[in-house]
């Protein structure tokens, strides 16, 4: 495992929230590395720190203590702008509640990150269309999120995450709001993309179907890694 390129590394990170006068430790000195081509799931009970960990790796949040590295870059000193650029260029996100921009069509949502990157129109068009077709949304490109089912919206989110060809896709409970059939289809689709493109996927989930299909399972308990199993 250590021979492969390290994409993510959390080094003794703590994340502490203040709730009134009480300090809540979501992460407690957690250390973890994620490697190129991983299809890994971070599992654990509610409150174990799964989402908090993904937010740290996604440069969406800062640890209270410790250091997070993305492709070897220490995130501690990055400005808001540099963190935005990192997310734009290197990380694809799939959130739990199929977060799409409501006034953009499926096509435009998938295109958004490419627009931010300044990718030429022709390349954008080719890439977005092929991705939307690949996730099974052929013929639905011009639909707005409200005109799509939950599963279809999540597929758009996956297309958006993969469009800029990121080094890493972070998916926070991507199947949480989907029915069983749609969940299975979605996870199979991402597994296929992982096999075909070699993109690194890191999920947080307690969905058994996701856990079963993962190549690596990291179990969290009380903000720490309880086990780390490569399958």
């Amino acid at each position, binding site marked *: 495992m250590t021979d492969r390129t390290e994409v993510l590394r959390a080094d003794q990170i703590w994340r502490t929230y203040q709730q009134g006068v009480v300090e809540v430790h979501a992460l407690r000195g957690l250390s973890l590395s994620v490697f190129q081509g991983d299809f890994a799931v971070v599992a654990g009970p509610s409150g174990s720190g799964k989402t908090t960990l993904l*937010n740290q790796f996604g440069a969406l949040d800062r640890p209270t203590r410790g250091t997070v590295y993305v492709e070897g870059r220490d995130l501690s000193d990055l400005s808001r702008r540099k963190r935005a*650029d990192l997310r734009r260029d290197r*990380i694809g*996100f799939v*959130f739990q509640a199929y977060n799409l921009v409501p006034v953009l069509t499926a096509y435009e949502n998938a295109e*958004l990150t490419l627009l931010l990157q300044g990718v030429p129109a022709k390349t954008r068009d080719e890439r977005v269309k092929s991705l939307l077709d690949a996730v099974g949304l052929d013929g639905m490109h011009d639909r707005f999120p409200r005109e799509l089912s939950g599963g279809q919206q999540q597929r758009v989110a996956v297309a958006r995450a993969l469009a800029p060809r990121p080094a890493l896709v972070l998916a926070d409970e991507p199947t949480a709001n989907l029915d069983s059939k749609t969940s299975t289809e979605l996870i199979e689709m991402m597994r296929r993309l992982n096999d075909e493109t070699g993109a690194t996927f890191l999920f947080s989930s307690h969905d058994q179907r996701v856990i079963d299909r993962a190549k690596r399972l990291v179990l969290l308990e009380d903000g720490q890694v309880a086990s780390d199993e490569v399958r």
Partner: protein
Amino acid sequence: MIRSLALAHRLALRNVRRYARRSIITAVTIWFGMVMVVFTIGISEGAYRRVVDTAARSGPGHVAVQTPDLDPFEPEPLARADEAMAIAAAIPGAEIAPRARLPALLSSAGGSVNLLALGVEPALERKTSILSEALVEGEWLPDEQGRVPEIVIGRTTARRLDLGLGDRAVVMAQVDGELSSVLLRVGGIFALGSDEVDSGIAVVPIHTLQLLLGQPDAVHQVAVILDDLHRARPVQRQLQAALPDAEVQTWDQLLPELGDYVTMDRNGGDVSFAFLFAIVAVAVLNAVLMSVLERVKEFGLMLAVGTRPSTLFLVVVLEALVLSMGSAALGAVVGGALVLWMGHTGVDLATLFGMEQSMDVAGYDISGTIYPYLPPLRTLYMSAMVVVVTVAGSLWPAWKATRIEPVEAIRHD
């Protein structure tokens, strides 16, 4: 930077289009503000034009050619007055009226008053002076004078001297240290509504006044009446260049109190506009802030997927800019069309504001109907101000949008 701007512009246009309801509400607010601004400018500028025109036509004209440093009490005749009249008359859209001026005492059996005896060419003055239109009794000076020349006086003077039509009065003045006088018959009485004019001016044939002065060809002032008040300055420059030995002044130099009044009133109007702009700014700030607060999740998501805070800032500001430019332009067009139409038909202030049939502005009485007018530069400036104010109103909400924490925003409902 250019890429960010282009992207932000594209996203902003799309947002304006797709958040149609909110865009329409914001646009209507700006549009209404702009129409109000344009309409108010139109009404006030129309009133200024009316009062200035009234004052200029009853007094020295829009532009006057006169002896340099004309002493109102001992006026010196204008040298080469014929040449000045010929040059002024050649200006397109200009009517001229030569005048002789003499501070005098007008006496009757009822008493005497000091006033300015204004010697005029009756025929020319009939075309240019508003006094001939303001007659309430009798008639304007005839072209040919009888044995006893006629005089036209103001209603206040008539009342003070107990003079009526056909009554005789004496104009007396000191000329070269000697008292000189002429007997005249009251042929007409005017009432302009301005106490200054109605009690301060008496109009006599220029020839009569020249005889009284002992200067048969004396002309102290050539009044130039223009078809458009706003041509006063260029015409003044043109005449001054052609007549370097004379003094050429515009109405605001000739009637400095009136010029100051217009400037002061316009500045006061600007203060009112500042309040109106502040209201528009607050309305826009409120609309944009609401829009940002309603879209916390959307903006948080955009930040999460890598939109730079500066780009998001631009998106919000550009949305306001796009809306304000469109609305301000439309407001200027609609307001401008309204003012243009009213400028043609006239606005009866009595109907519009429930005012009396006439009102006093800077000591001049103007009739209840005014003709709104829109100076293009001022309109353009105010339109630009509306856009600037709108954009200013969007800055704080835009900054707030950049401070959204993506982690919290994507969980926001």
